[in-house]
């Protein structure tokens, strides 16, 4: 049976909380204010970032700590922070033990070409794989979280966000940078001071389930209570792709000059992670919608890609040998 989808974006009728009008347009498209309003917001937030930079730059060894996966979006983020905003960048790569070999080469090439220092965090694989294996077998997070990513991805990204924050605090770096695509996070959050008390509360949503699985072994990746007592040391968040023009083809063309090449062993929605296809397949079976559909629908709505291009990313089944690769590894930890 064909799934009913919004006639403007690609959100399906199986998406949590969705409703449609008589024309088949979803509630999210009905609320959308249009491209002109979005572009005004983008200009406003870039201006906010540029003003902040003037105040905060040169206050420490590095201006910004970037969460660097080696994928195209975080590569482009690294590029704009180095070249457009002339920031001194420390890239941090979290090795989740499923990074594509081609992505590892991209990380080395790009950091070398851009002159960025690279800090690799490689946790004990057994701990991470136990977490991913558990996430593959049962749900760990709230219904809301499931709109935006699979349970496996949410676990991984949750650790990354926290290790990035903790490292920035320890190294007294004034900004943390993320390569969220325009569909992943709203422009209103693209330049935002990390509020320590709010972060302390929200951190529990990820820390508690992961601690139940892995115990104190995960503590080194989370902000400590002593650090939460010093909110003045918390960095500003920036995700510049929300306020800059975003065109996938142009981004790929640009980052190729740094030695970046698209891996051929990852699924259509990732350019670095071998685990993604398996994570997607589990989510699609469990909830009957693709875990990337929210992000892709936002980008279709924003005019970043066509509806057909969006459907191409979320409708084909996951590639079986990619799914099997990760499943076989994680089955050893279940």
């Amino acid at each position, binding site marked *: 049976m064909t799934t009913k989808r919004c006639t403007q974006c690609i959100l399906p009728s199986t998406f*949590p*909380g969705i409703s449609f009008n008589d024309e088949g347009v979803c*509630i999210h498209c009905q*609320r959308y*204010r249009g491209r002109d309003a979005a572009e005004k917001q983008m200009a406003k937030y870039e201006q906010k970032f540029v003003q902040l930079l003037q105040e905060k730059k040169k206050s420490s060894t590095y201006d910004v700590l970037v969460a660097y996966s080696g994928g195209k979006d975080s590569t482009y983020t690294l590029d704009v922070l180095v070249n457009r905003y002339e920031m001194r960048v420390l890239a941090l790569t979290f090795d989740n033990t499923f990074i594509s070999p081609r992505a590892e080469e991209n990380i080395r090439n790009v950091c070398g070409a851009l002159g960025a220092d690279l800090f690799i965090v490689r946790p004990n694989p057994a701990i991470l794989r136990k977490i991913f294996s558990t996430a593959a077998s049962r749900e760990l*997070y*709230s*219904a*809301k*979280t499931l709109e*935006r990513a699979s349970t496996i991805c949410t676990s991984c990204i949750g650790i990354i*966000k926290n290790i990035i924050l903790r490292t920035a605090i320890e190294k007294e770096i004034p900004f943390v940078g993320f390569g969220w695509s325009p569909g992943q*996070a*709203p422009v*209103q*959050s693209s330049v*935002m*001071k990390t*509020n320590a*008390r*709010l*972060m302390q*509360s*929200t*951190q*529990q*949503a*990820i820390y508690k389930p992961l601690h139940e699985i892995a115990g104190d072994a995960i503590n080194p990746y989370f902000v400590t209570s002593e650090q939460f007592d010093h909110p003045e040391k918390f960095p500003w968040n920036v995700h510049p792709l929300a306020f800059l023009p975003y065109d996938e083809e142009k981004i790929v063309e640009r980052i190729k000059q740094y030695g970046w090449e698209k891996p051929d062993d990852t699924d259509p929605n990732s350019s670095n992670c071998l685990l993604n296809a398996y994570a997607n397949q589990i989510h699609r079976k469990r909830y009957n919608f693709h875990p990337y559909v929210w992000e892709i629908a936002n980008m279709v709505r924003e005019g970043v890609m066509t509806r057909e291009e969006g459907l191409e990313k979320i409708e084909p089944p996951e590639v079986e040998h990619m799914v099997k690769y990760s499943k076989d590894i994680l089955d050893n930890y279940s």
Partner: protein
Amino acid sequence: MNDTLATIRKFIFDNFLFDAAEEDLGNDDSFLDQGIIDSTGVLELVEWLEDTFDIAVDDDELIPENLDSVNQLAAFINKKANPEP
């Protein structure tokens, strides 16, 4: 104020609680303690506040006291709409 409360409750149910029953959320219940809203959910909440009530939420206003329940949100919106002279 009652209209504001109803608008907030509708947004929370439509976007965070989905099929939950009305009685599952009291107006003083903590979104954070109950795991209703996570860090990205907070950003979505701020986007909605700014768009719906035509207010600008400053970074130093992103604190649990302003955002953590239906009643706290209503009070925050009221304060932003009617700033003290």
